[in-house]
């Protein structure tokens, strides 16, 4: 008699043994919560293209939003625990992890790192509780991989600022209460906290995505939005500020991709051991086993890389090109695993009843946002050769 399949393919390399008791508790605690509150209905939300606003409040109460920040109602998790939380979130759906990444690592982090004390007190507790939603607006229609080409402007008018421009592909844009908007000024790039109720501010959701459907993506239009100087993030000077925020969120993706891939492989192991053709489970065919084995090995490698980068971050030794290596490798492997899993599921694999194709579609966005695979390749290339090949 055959044993049942391994319930967690990460157990192949005993990845758990690299974690502290507390990290495991954080991971298990969130996994249980998500199984009860987020996993049910996720395919349906993807199909209908809706984000569950109530779930955001529940995630806030759980301490997930801004979990790696300290003070202002944030939980203060270490880097690996933060990564593991992203892993569990993305094992449900990349859209859910995207919401949490943008809320915690882009919106909240930008305020926590570059904001004034008043700005922190005004926004961070509400964002941490999920009472308010934040977004982060860097990308523009004509400035994607090259954010230095941004056109959105902030011009001084007396003691006020007047912002004009268009941002696009902004996660959470249409449901946000506050937007961290990056704009060009006479002195270079600056960040502004724009309440979405401000006059002249408008958000239009991107209508029919084929990816990250359970997450809101919007275009933000700023037409002469007038803000006091207290809306400017006082400690953010230059493009380095938004890029440092992206680096935080990217670190979460390194773990998140492992979660999406783990969910695909779990689903597929299960399916392959029960689906019978030619009188035996398809998991018993060598071609299927080759796929499963290759995927489990690759998944284990991704997890090792993620935990390694987490330990470097703990010691404040994590360099941007290392995050690039993690994001490039893990998202690339995860999307490969998701697609391969789909093949094992046969026709059933093209439905929403099974997660791999949903994950694969989601990972198309993950491959592109927070720096495309090509841009991360060039970042690693520059670190290796000393030559910047971007332009």
């Amino acid at each position, binding site marked *: 008699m055959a044993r049942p399949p391994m319930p967690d393919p990460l157990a192949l390399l005993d990845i758990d043994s690299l974690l502290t008791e*507390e990290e495991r*508790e*954080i991971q298990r*605690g*969130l996994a*249980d*919560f998500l199984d*009860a509150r987020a996993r049910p209905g996720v395919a349906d939300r993807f199909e209908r293209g809706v984000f569950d606003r109530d779930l955001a409040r529940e995630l806030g*109460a*759980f*301490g*997930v939003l801004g*979990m790696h920040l300290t003070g202002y109602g944030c*939980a*203060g*998790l270490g880097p690996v625990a933060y990564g593991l*939380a992203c892993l569990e979130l993305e094992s449900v759906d990349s859209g859910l992890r995207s919401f949490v990444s943008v809320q915690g690592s882009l919106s909240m982090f930008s305020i926590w790192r570059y904001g004034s004390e008043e700005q922190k007190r005004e926004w961070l507790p509400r964002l941490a509780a999920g009472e308010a939603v934040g977004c982060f607006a860097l990308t523009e229609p004509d400035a994607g991989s090259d954010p230095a080409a941004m056109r959105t402007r902030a011009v001084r008018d007396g003691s006020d600022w007047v912002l004009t421009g268009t941002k696009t592909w902004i996660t959470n844009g249409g449901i946000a209460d506050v937007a961290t908007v990056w704009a060009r000024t006479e002195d270079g790039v600056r960040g502004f906290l724009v309440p979405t109720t401000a006059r002249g501010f408008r958000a239009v959701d991107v209508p029919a995505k084929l990816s990250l459907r359970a997450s809101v993506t919007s275009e933000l239009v700023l037409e002469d939005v007038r803000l006091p100087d207290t809306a400017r993030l006082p400690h953010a000077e230059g493009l380095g500020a938004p890029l440092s925020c992206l680096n935080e969120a990217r670190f979460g993706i390194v773990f998140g991709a492992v979660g999406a891939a783990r969910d695909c492989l779990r689903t597929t192991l299960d399916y392959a051991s029960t689906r019978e053709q030619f009188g035996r489970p398809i998991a018993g065919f060598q071609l299927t086993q080759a796929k499963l084995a290759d995927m489990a090995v690759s998944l284990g490698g991704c997890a090792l890389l993620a935990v390694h980068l987490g330990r470097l971050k703990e010691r404040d030794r994590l360099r941007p090109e290392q995050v690039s290596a993690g994001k490039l490798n893990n998202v690339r492997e995860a999307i490969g695993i998701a697609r391969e899993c789909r093949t094992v599921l046969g026709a059933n694999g093209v439905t929403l009843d099974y997660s791999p194709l949903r994950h694969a579609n989601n990972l198309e966005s993950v491959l592109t946002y927070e720096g495309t695979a090509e841009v991360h390749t060039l970042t690693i290339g520059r670190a290796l050769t000393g030559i910047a090949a971007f332009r």
Partner: protein
Amino acid sequence: METMNIVVLIKQVPDTWSERKLTDTDHTLDRDAADAVIDEINERAVEEALLLKEAHGGKVTVVSMGPDRATDAIRKALSMGADEAVHISDAALHGSDTIQTAKVLASAIRTIEGVDLVVAGNEATDGRAGAIPAMLAELLGLPQLTHARRVEVEGTEVRVERETEDGITHLAAELPAVVSVGEKINEPRYPSFKGIMAAKKKPVTTLGLGDLGIDPSEVGLAAAFTSVVESAPKPPRGAGERVEDQGDGGVRIVEYLAAQKLV
């Protein structure tokens, strides 16, 4: 009642999803064979205590008797929001039966000053004796309100809706008292990240038999009133009998049931 001093009994049990077995040598639970978790019914007991604390103010102390691994169950309870823990751990306790366990728990509860309420689960999912709460109440000389599906405290009185197969009874008693709760009492909360982070800073007192003034010879397998002599897994279910319905299906089913002396 100004504020409440509540004790919750919790037990680490093998996960009901994993394979559970007894050791070959002394027929006690093989604790290494299965994943250990906090007993689900105890999570409900912790939840009920936390709800009472939230309503009346006060403190929740969890008490657990068990090997070192019980610290996981204790930490879970502390992560949910309990304030302190007492862990009774002593190698001599191995194989203790329910009476001995109740005596040890009673001694431990006596070390906590001014207890208003002791909350426990009706029965643990491993031993399933379901006798501890009653024995404990007897030993502590307190009223027992068992099988609660609803608990209310007003002034110095505790009121309980007791649900058993016979129906629902409404009970009331003066505090202090022992209450045991059933499956329907509540939905236990998930420990939040902040709860998990705070748990490691909460005090856990570890007590041995010496601290409780109990002689090791009074407890453990050798001195137990009951012990397991033998155990065997349930035989696998047979294939069953297939009856083709040719218009006489109903009659054939009754014939079968009659042959089994079921009707």
